[in-house]
């Protein structure tokens, strides 16, 4: 059994989970689909956890042992894993299953891209990444990113639901009626960002600590650093937006979507379009 095979099965499970959630939205009378969607997602998460562990072990068997967080392929796989993990936490805590329909596509997209479009070979770690800080930094950053991905999915749902609520009260048969009420979505958006913001903060702090340890500067305005700060500013604005009235709901949902767009740029755009120290993705 190789990690690569397990990652392929994981990808299929995430696809199945997403389809089940879509079915749950269409068939609002059958709660079975939503439950199935969640359980398949959890199954995929478990399998992916094993696969990541296995890949870690495989790197040691190759004599170049290191945590599987060292290149773009490994980071995209890990990103998918964290998205499903954060979704799982919200699902267990708040039990609004159908948000899976707007969250699992992100996880699936990541896995499909990694499995179909990227080289997956295990490579030795370049000297710049040979540090335990890599582990702390990458794990905290990606957990934060994942929470923002979930918040973005929920915000899209919010915007659809809110628009629907405005137009039609009578048309209760519509698909959108299975969505949680907009008040709940707004709250879940906030809750996901409440998970993501401390993690991103910790991610930036561990990154700074590592940079200081390895290069003697905790902050050098490298594009990746700057973008992570931009993302941080946006979500700090989001949190304050909730305190001033009038910035909850729609505007908060848009801020959350813009925040996630900036997050994705910070993660991928910087590597693909700008130059700097984090040549990581390449």
């Amino acid at each position: 059994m190789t990690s690569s095979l397990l990652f392929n099965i994981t990808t299929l499970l995430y696809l199945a989970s997403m389809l089940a959630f879509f079915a749950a939205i269409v068939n609002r009378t059958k709660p079975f689909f939503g439950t199935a969607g969640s359980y398949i997602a959890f199954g995929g998460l478990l399998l992916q956890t094993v696969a990541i562990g296995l890949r870690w072990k495989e790197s040691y068997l190759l004599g170049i042992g290191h945590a599987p967080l060292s290149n773009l392929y490994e980071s995209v796989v890990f990103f998918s894993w964290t998205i499903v993990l954060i979704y799982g936490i919200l699902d267990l805590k708040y039990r609004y299953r159908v948000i899976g329909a707007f969250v699992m596509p992100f996880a699936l997209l990541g896995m499909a891209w990694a499995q179909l479009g990227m080289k997956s070979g295990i490579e030795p770690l370049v000297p710049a990444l040979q540090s335990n800080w890599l582990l702390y930094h990458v794990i905290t950053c990606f957990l934060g990113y994942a929470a923002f991905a979930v918040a973005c999915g929920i915000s899209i749902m919010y915007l659809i639901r809110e628009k629907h609520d405005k137009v039609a009260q009578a048309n209760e048969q519509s698909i959108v009626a299975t969505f949680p009420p907009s008040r709940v979505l707004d709250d879940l958006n906030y809750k996901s960002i409440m998970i993501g913001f401390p993690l991103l903060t910790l991610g930036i702090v561990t990154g700074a600590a590592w940079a200081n340890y390895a290069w003697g500067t905790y902050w050098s305005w490298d594009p990746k650093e700057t973008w992570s700060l931009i993302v941080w500013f946006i979500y700090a604005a989001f949190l304050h937006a909730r305190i001033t009235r009038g910035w909850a709901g729609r505007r908060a949902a848009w801020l959350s979507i813009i925040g996630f767009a900036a997050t994705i740029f910070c993660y991928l755009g910087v590597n693909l379009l700008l130059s700097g120290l984090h040549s990581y993705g390449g």
Partner: protein
Amino acid sequence: MTSSKKSIPQSIWDFFCSLKLTMFTLITLAVLSIVGTVIPQGTPPPEYLHSISQNKLKLYKGLGFFDMYHSWWFILLLSLLSLNLLACSVKRLPGIWRTITRPVRVMDDSLETTLPNLTSIITSGDAVTLRDRVAAVMKAEFAEPVITEADGTYHLFAQKTPWSRLAVYAVHLSVLVIFIGAIIGSLFGYKGFVNIPEGESVGKVMSRSEKEIDLGFAVHLEKFSVSHYPNGAPKEFKSILTVLENGKPVAGYDRVPVIVNDPLSYKGITFYQSSYGKLGEHEFTISDSDGSNSQPLIVKSGGSTKLPDGSGLCLQETTPDISRFQTGLSGPAAQVEVHLANGENKTFVVYSNNPAMNRMNLPYTGGKLLQYRGGEEFMYTGLQVAKDPGVWVVWVGCILMVVGIYVAFFMAHRRIWVRVESGTVTIGGNSSKNQGGFQLFMEQLVTKLKKQLPLEDNK
């Protein structure tokens, strides 16, 4: 305020306290920061400068876009954020402090109307018994209540984690602490660079602003080495360093291996493995094709020189023994690149023991005979040097921020008031966070209370 019209100082104060300013500053900072990730910072590479027009270049220079994170307007925005933070905290902190240190212990009518979960329980029994029962339940389920008596009515008050209200202010303070740390670092620290050849010592480094800085001690490079993975990718760059005080090794700092991600620190100054290279001098001779009129030609490792006919020569690589690369040959050899007059570049090897083979290069060297005599070569290490006395302040700020955010988000100040009269128990409470969860808790608490009270009319 008595008058409805605001005075000017008051409006200025309100401006600095407002959350709208916070939103504005945070979003503006986010948007403007993008500029510096698109336009190269520091000394932009010449290719970039050629790619933009003169007008644009002037504009960018004028706006400070090439060092934008230190430009006046960026600093102004950060100052605005700091002032905003400070003003907002000064305005709100006293009230919060009062809430924490002098809690309202009696639920009066005006408080009562603000509580979302007010419940009245009709019961029998005298006030004293009821009071003791309620107090016992509160102590077991929540926290020990403080009891106040007024006109035969008992007021019970209990609260949990009131200090969690301070967390937001700790977060805001932490931003200022980090700024202070950064300012200390930029005033009293420096970033520099130094190259040390193998076997040599240095006592001075060059700062980024091109100032020479005396370390007060010396650093000696014993040896530098590079190791590779089987596939040829670099695995480790290692400098063996010794710190010298008055020319003598310092105990504990003798032959310390320094690699990427594992620096050496001494007296607050840290040395980081950053680059490396070769240093050395090589001797060539250039003569007429028959060997007469021989003249020496000295070239540095990786350096270049001019040949008599004016074409340039770059020394690319040398070896003390060519037999490792070309069987059948021996002795030192050098690989050079010559830029010919016709614009062509020609790369070839110059030997020391094979004049016959050197003769084949005559067409590229203007008909003169170039021979390699050998040279001495050794490694040097490039170290980044940093001193930052503000870094500890920054870490304290970071820890304060992370802990503060955690407490601000996930801990709540919960308060419960109970009024006990004979025959009625009225209970209400509020929470600074997570009202939904608190509502549930209150419902359970009321259920438990009812079990403990002698109920007359169970409603």
